């Protein structure tokens, strides 16, 4: 087969083989099917698989069943909901205090519609950058209001989110380790200088629905000086001609154009990091001469292919999840040295273990115990106070997806809090209610509890132990409680709270 007819997934695997060989590493084995369905369902829909889906997958005898599952997941409405949630978190940061639920809902709705239609990603970003109109009505303008339409905030966020370039240090001085100069920062900020409304001081200016529009005037200046800085693209000395188009239009065209490898590389790296837990460049939003990709060729081959496929995110997700690399086990070896273990993780020779985000944990708890999943089902940013309180308490920080960040307060809440209490009591758990049905054997009941939470049946010895525990119970009421205790143990287990 000619080189350009090989599918991207195979090119990636071939390249990684070379990387592993150079490093003298042996990749671990493939995941089991039950591990795979849990991982890929979480990564592509944000939810753990339902029991019925696990059975269906097991019963599919096709040799292509993993690929078929991926296609199925990518076609679900829930996939668009999940991508919208992810991109909302990338684009709006977590600090939503000055935004209201309706605005965020509108923003998510806009994202969902774009992901549902699989709009080319460069077009999506162009729409976002060129957003106009009332902050109250349309979706993408919220990106601007969340950053208070401040040129310096917009510059920081835009370069970091879409180009993977952190200009932050250069705002106040030349970058200490990189080639970025202070003028580079401000010449990027200059693209956002001709916007209305102009930034105020009170953070409240977005209330009441002002319009986001371009202005013919507006400049940025170096801090504490009167030196005006004109808009320039990265690495280009001459200012951009903005006689014939607005500054934003010039920026959007350059950023999302096919010659701009920064954009494609940052995008595929972010998607990679979402799936693999670690970026090819890591942290995924910090491309820098100090922080080179683990393999330049790997990154470039994916980025080039992404451009050739018109920035098709669904295609990219399908190819990445179809790689052998994505489907490797996360099993650790206790005999390996720390150094080798780190190398294995860094070169994707072993899959990473990702503790759940706060959203995944809440939705997982609700789903595993068959309680209504308010936001997950509707897909919207919701104002359910119980969910909001939970998210605030468990919210992760930063780009690191590998670290377990919770502490004692969170563990206490998961063990003894109201949400868990309700979930493991017969009155509050549709799962436990369903298991009351007389046609279930105790073994089946235990099996279902495991499948609903950790997506696989118990180990044989554990099944025996749990079965004996049920048999010890003197009456149906205490057996009911015992099933609740098993569910409690499952919901509090490390396995439940991790995507591995």
């Amino acid at each position, binding site marked *: 087969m000619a080189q350009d007819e090989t599918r991207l997934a195979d090119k990636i695997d071939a390249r990684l083989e070379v990387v592993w060989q150079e490093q003298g590493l042996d990749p671990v084995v493939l995941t089991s099917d039950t591990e795979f369905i849990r991982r890929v369902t979480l990564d592509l829909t944000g939810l753990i698989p339902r029991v019925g889906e696990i059975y269906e997958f097991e019963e599919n005898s096709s040799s292509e069943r993993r690929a078929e599952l991926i296609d199925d997941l990518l076609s679900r409405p829930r996939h668009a909901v999940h991508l919208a949630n992810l991109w909302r978190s990338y684009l709006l940061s977590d600090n939503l205090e000055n935004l209201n639920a309706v605005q965020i809902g509108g923003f998510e709705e806009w994202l969902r519609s774009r992901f549902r239609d699989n709009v080319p990603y460069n077009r999506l970003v162009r729409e976002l950058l060129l957003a106009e109109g009332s902050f109250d009505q349309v979706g993408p303008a919220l990106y601007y209001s969340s950053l208070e339409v401040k040129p310096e905030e917009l510059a920081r966020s835009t370069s970091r989110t879409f180009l993977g370039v952190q200009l932050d240090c250069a705002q106040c001085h030349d970058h200490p380790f990189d080639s970025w100069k202070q003028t580079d920062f401000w010449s990027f900020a200059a693209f956002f200088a001709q916007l209305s409304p102009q930034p105020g001081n009170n953070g409240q200016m977005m209330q009441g629905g002002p319009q986001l529009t371009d202005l013919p005037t507006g400049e940025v200046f170096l801090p504490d000086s009167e030196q005006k800085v004109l808009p320039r693209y990265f690495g280009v000395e001459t200012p951009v001609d903005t006689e014939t188009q607005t500054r934003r239009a010039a920026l959007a065209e350059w950023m999302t154009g096919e010659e701009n490898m920064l954009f494609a590389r940052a995008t595929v790296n972010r998607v990679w990091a979402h799936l693999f837990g670690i970026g090819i460049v890591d942290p995924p939003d910090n491309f820098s001469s100090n922080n080179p990709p683990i393999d330049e060729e790997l990154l470039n081959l994916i980025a080039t292919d992404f451009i050739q496929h018109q920035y098709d995110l669904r295609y990219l997700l399908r190819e990445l999840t179809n790689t052998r690399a994505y489907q490797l086990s996360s099993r650790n070896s206790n005999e390996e040295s720390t150094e080798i273990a780190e190398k294995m993780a860094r070169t994707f020779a072993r899959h990473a273990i990702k503790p759940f985000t706060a959203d995944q944990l809440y939705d997982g708890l609700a789903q595993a115990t068959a309680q209504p999943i308010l936001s997950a089902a509707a897909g919207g940013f919701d104002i359910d106070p119980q969910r909001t309180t939970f998210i605030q308490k468990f919210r992760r920080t930063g780009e690191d997806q590998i670290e377990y960040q919770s502490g004692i307060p969170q563990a206490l809440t998961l*063990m003894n809090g109201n949400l868990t209490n309700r979930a493991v009591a017969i009155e509050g758990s549709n799962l436990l209610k369903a298991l009351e049905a007389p046609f279930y054997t105790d073994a089946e009941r235990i099996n279902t509890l495991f499948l609903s939470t950790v997506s696989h049946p118990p180990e044989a010895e554990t099944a025996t132990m749990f079965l004996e525990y049920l048999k010890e119970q003197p009456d149906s009421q205490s057996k009911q409680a015992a099933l609740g205790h098993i569910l409690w143990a499952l919901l509090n287990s490390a396995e439940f709270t991790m995507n591995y």
Partner: protein
Amino acid sequence: MWNINRRRCLQTLAGGIAGLSASHWLQPIAQSLAAEESTSPKRNLIVLWMTGGPSQLDTFDLKPGHENGGEFQPIDTNVPGIQISEHLPQLAQQADKLAIIRSLSTKEGDHARGTYLMHTGQRPGAPIQYPTICASLSKELRGSDDTLPNFMSVGGNLLNFNIDLGPGFLGPGFAPLAVRAQGGNRPNNDEIPEANNPTMAYPSFQVEDLALGGGLTREQHTKRTTLWNRLQSDFQNRQGTSAAFTAHQTVYQRAMNMMNGPTAKIFDLSDEPEELRQAYGTGVFGQSCLLARRLIEAGVSVIEVPFDGVSWDTHADNFNQVKNLSGQLDAAWPTLLTDLEQRGLLETTTILWMGEFGRTPNINENTGRDHFAQAWSCVFAGGHVNGGQVYGATNDSGMEVTDNKVDVGDVLSTLCEAVGVSPHTQNMSNLGRPINVAEGAVIEEILG
């Protein structure tokens, strides 16, 4: 002096490591610093948070003879030349331990925004999720084998309303463990109970979600734990030992130890001598201060004690209310100082007294005082504080700072230094930018 400067310098370098992963050469310095630090005693912090915004004119910056001064008279303290309110007579006898700042000037006059500002040093609304200073300092002051969370909030609640205030970009592991008071004598703006009524029942304290839920027996919980252990070891056997698994296991073990072990007794104050309990004041605030001392003894480094309710928000009937509130404060705070001192903990425990803002010098038609951030007071006490002084001043009307104006950043930076943490210690923010623990000038005069 050389030592202090060297320490600060090294801490700055060490703090920078988070931001500069390439700087391997810094590591040996950081390690030598860690070794140096571990030999010095552990430092602690108690924030006495005056929910609602305490009146500076009726506590620490009285204006006798001016129409704004109101009903209260100043009294002498055990430090010549320093006077405070007549309703803080016990505290007046320990003024040698206090450094009173009368020149604090900030820019937020709303409860939620002021609460956020005074805890983070930042005005709300920025895309960066700033942590409360208590979370940042608890991170720096924690030990590697702490059995308890190193930051607890005891008693009342902050008035941060819809503004998220907590561990911010440090992550959920640095959130405070909330200890709630139930029952007991509570101040109330409508009806004023006697400050320290000895016949009142004491409040009891409950750690959020520490008690077994859903009517569970101890025995059932033990069974749950057995099942859970089984699942943990199955997962570990199958997946090997990962960093995430180890962290999960450790956090759960500690939480379970808290539920089962002797630490649960810390929250039951009934083994304290009756006389001491009475001395702290029988109300929620007094007993919370006593609990704070017990937590310091148990190894918790950072404790915030918010006055419960919107106590100090005295828009009406200011003088009766502040008199009552002062009574509670005057029982709890001086007792806390002597109690810590007798146990040898005062020199390692810094206390900061403040609220979200001060109150208007002019008295409104309801004999109340409204929100005022332009010129107000806060007080440092205890460990590494140069007590027995007043820093800064306001004019006769109390409307303007006339001397040594201090901003919130200066207060928080000074607090950092007092507990031995460089304010320039950096953490990576949610936007991938390293952020100093505090921004401002350390007020060297305050430090002892």
